[in-house]
């Protein structure tokens, strides 16, 4: 029965959560229970569809969807030489990101079922969560630069509203304001680049633009603008200041999904660099610039994380460092730009690290959310001895700690080792800096582990209970994924990462559909 449905999957995966966003508000007018069941069904269906589409794309290759046309594959209407309709284009990289996004959103939803019951305004919380998911999926699947801007705005506004969840706190409002200013600035930069393209080529389709690109001065300005905008949204070093604020103030589950949102703008950065511009640019120079941005992010993120005493802010700074690792690998991959050699390994490592980052940092943020739920505190100086009463949460924190620091049995080790090896062949010094930063990161999290879970038991925490089963289940699911990927990384690299990296290098296939 799915043969008829498969051509429609790219739009259904965006449209069903969008439907869920609006309908869940109506369901919460009936009862909270009905809303939870409905949201669970919508996310479950989306997860299932994204996996079906993933299987289809990994076996049959890229899929195109033209909205409003008489058939889904009709990209240019009869008599037109260029596409005018909204086109979705899903290749191996898009669906790779899509699977990560929906899976993290599903796990985050299960996690937030219980803790959100304590707060008011949960009807809007689920609507905003769904809208954020729609924004991220739209950025991943769209083949149109203007739609990318629209979905970026959707994700930004939903994200900012979620950061301001604890509206009674002044700091939350400030963090949300910072987030919305940064995101609007990024989105307006993207709009400026879109205007530069539209003025020159009268087109907005990414594949068509890539085909007719003349690499004029205006195109180079547009590239710089897009690079800045997406690096800012991803939280790269000189533009990272919004990240610790937003992640530190948002509730744990929201922070976990915002990590994925910033990785989605990493995807947009890769799409622009590789597919839209490709070899027409001086890849060596641009690769160096991205690499240096990455190193800066690693250095600033790790050193700033060392001195934090707020749980969320600390993980926020390590998230800056982790984005730095991805940028480092992506920069080396762009400088190499080939389907063999260390450049390709670096690109694979970067994509692999995107997957691992979403899982590792997601798990750590969920643990911080669990600690907040159990104790009501986030300040590391006030927490102590929680391992006595919260042993499962403690175990999940150890898994997340090892994964982020890149210790052997976890997934972080596999991708970081690939990054060290490939970057070493590009420039040995960069690799050494990256390894040192990883060691620092271990120090950061061991400090957190000692101050939160070990140490003397405080009187005020003697009655603290382990978090409910649904929250443990969500954290456990992420921990299991981390360990499975860590134990057999070759299966994931060969079957999932490799096609995604090839989709970036062989950009002719993506460009060839229009």
């Amino acid at each position, binding site marked *: 029965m799915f043969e008829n449905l498969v051509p*429609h999957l790219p739009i259904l995966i965006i*449209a069903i959560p969008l439907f869920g966003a*609006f309908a869940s508000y*109506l369901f919460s007018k009936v009862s909270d229970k009905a809303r939870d069941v409905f949201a669970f069904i919508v996310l479950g269906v989306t997860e299932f569809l994204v996996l079906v589409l993933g299987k289809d794309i990994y076996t049959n290759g890229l899929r195109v*969807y033209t*909205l*409003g046309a008489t*058939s*889904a594959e009709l990209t240019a209407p009869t008599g037109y030489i260029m596409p005018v309709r*909204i086109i979705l284009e899903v290749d191996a990289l898009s669906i790779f990101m899509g699977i990560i996004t929906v899976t993290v959103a599903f796990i985050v939803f299960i996690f937030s079922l219980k803790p959100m019951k304590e707060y008011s305004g949960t009807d809007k919380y689920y609507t905003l969560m769904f809208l954020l998911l729609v924004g991220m999926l739209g950025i991943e699947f769209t083949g149109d630069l203007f739609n990318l801007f629209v979905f970026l705005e959707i994700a930004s506004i939903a994200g900012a509203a979620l950061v301001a969840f604890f509206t009674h706190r002044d700091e939350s409002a400030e963090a949300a304001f910072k987030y919305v200013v940064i995101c609007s600035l990024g989105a307006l930069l993207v709009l400026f680049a879109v205007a530069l393209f539209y003025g020159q080529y009268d087109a907005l389709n990414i594949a068509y633009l890539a085909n007719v690109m003349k690499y004029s001065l205006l195109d180079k300005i547009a590239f710089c603008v897009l690079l800045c905008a997406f690096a800012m949204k991803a939280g790269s070093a000189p533009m990272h200041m919004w990240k610790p604020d937003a992640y530190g103030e948002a509730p744990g589950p929201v922070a976990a999904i915002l990590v994925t949102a910033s990785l989605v703008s990493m995807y947009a950065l890769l799409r622009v660099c590789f597919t839209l511009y490709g070899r027409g640019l001086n890849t060596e120079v641009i690769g160096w610039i991205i690499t240096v941005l990455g190193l800066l992010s690693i250095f600033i993120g790790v050193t700033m994380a060392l001195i934090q005493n707020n749980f969320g802010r600390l993980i926020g700074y390590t998230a800056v460092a982790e984005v730095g690792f991805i940028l480092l690998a992506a920069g080396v991959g762009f400088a190499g730009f080939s389907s063999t050699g260390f450049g390709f390994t670096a690109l694979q490592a970067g994509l692999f690290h995107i997957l691992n980052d979403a899982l590792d940092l997601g798990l750590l943020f969920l643990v911080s959310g669990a600690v907040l739920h159990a104790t009501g505190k986030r300040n590391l100086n006030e927490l102590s001895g929680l391992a006595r009463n919260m042993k499962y949460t403690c175990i999940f924190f150890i898994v997340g700690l090892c994964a982020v620091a890149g210790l052997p049995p976890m997934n972080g080790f596999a991708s970081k080792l690939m990054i060290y090896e490939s970057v070493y062949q590009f420039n040995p010094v960069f690799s050494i800096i990256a390894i040192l930063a990883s060691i620092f990161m271990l120090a950061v999290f061991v400090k957190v582990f000692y101050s939160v879970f070990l140490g003397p038991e405080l009187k005020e925490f003697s009655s603290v209970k382990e978090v409910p089963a649904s929250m443990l289940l969500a954290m456990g699911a992420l921990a299991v994924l981390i360990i499975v990927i860590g134990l057999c990384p070759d299966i994931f690299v060969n079957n999932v990462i490799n096609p995604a990296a090839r989709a970036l290098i062989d950009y002719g296939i993506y460009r060839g559909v229009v």
Partner: protein
Amino acid sequence: MIPMSKIVRTITNILYVFIIGFGFYVIIHGHLTPGGGFQGGAVVASAFALLAVAYGRKKIVSMLNKEHLSVAEISGLLAFICLAFLGLGTVFFFNFLAVGRSIPVFSNTPAGINPGDLNTAGILPLMNIAVGVEVLSALGVVILTMFLGFKEGK
């Protein structure tokens, strides 16, 4: 916020009917003339703002119910996305009313110069109405929320 003078209130009584009527005109003629669902919805919401300014906070809060407006907003959004889903027989967002013409709703195709036939363009007028309902109730909620922030008597 205290009510404004009797002159303002009398003029408002006359004008707001016309403003709302014009707003709905812009919504319904979205596929023929400049404007559409968003613009028309904003015009209707401006009538709410006029009423709120002229009659003060108490009156507007008793007239408009925030919950009802929220539900109307969501209904507009759901109507829009359901219209898009209905095209799925061919392709998402497919204009099934205008192309096949199997259902005789909004399916005329006038030829040559004409004074503007409302009964055209397939699902576009329906989508304009959906967006119009969404925007007028969303902006109504915004206006209501902003007026709730004022203190009484200032």
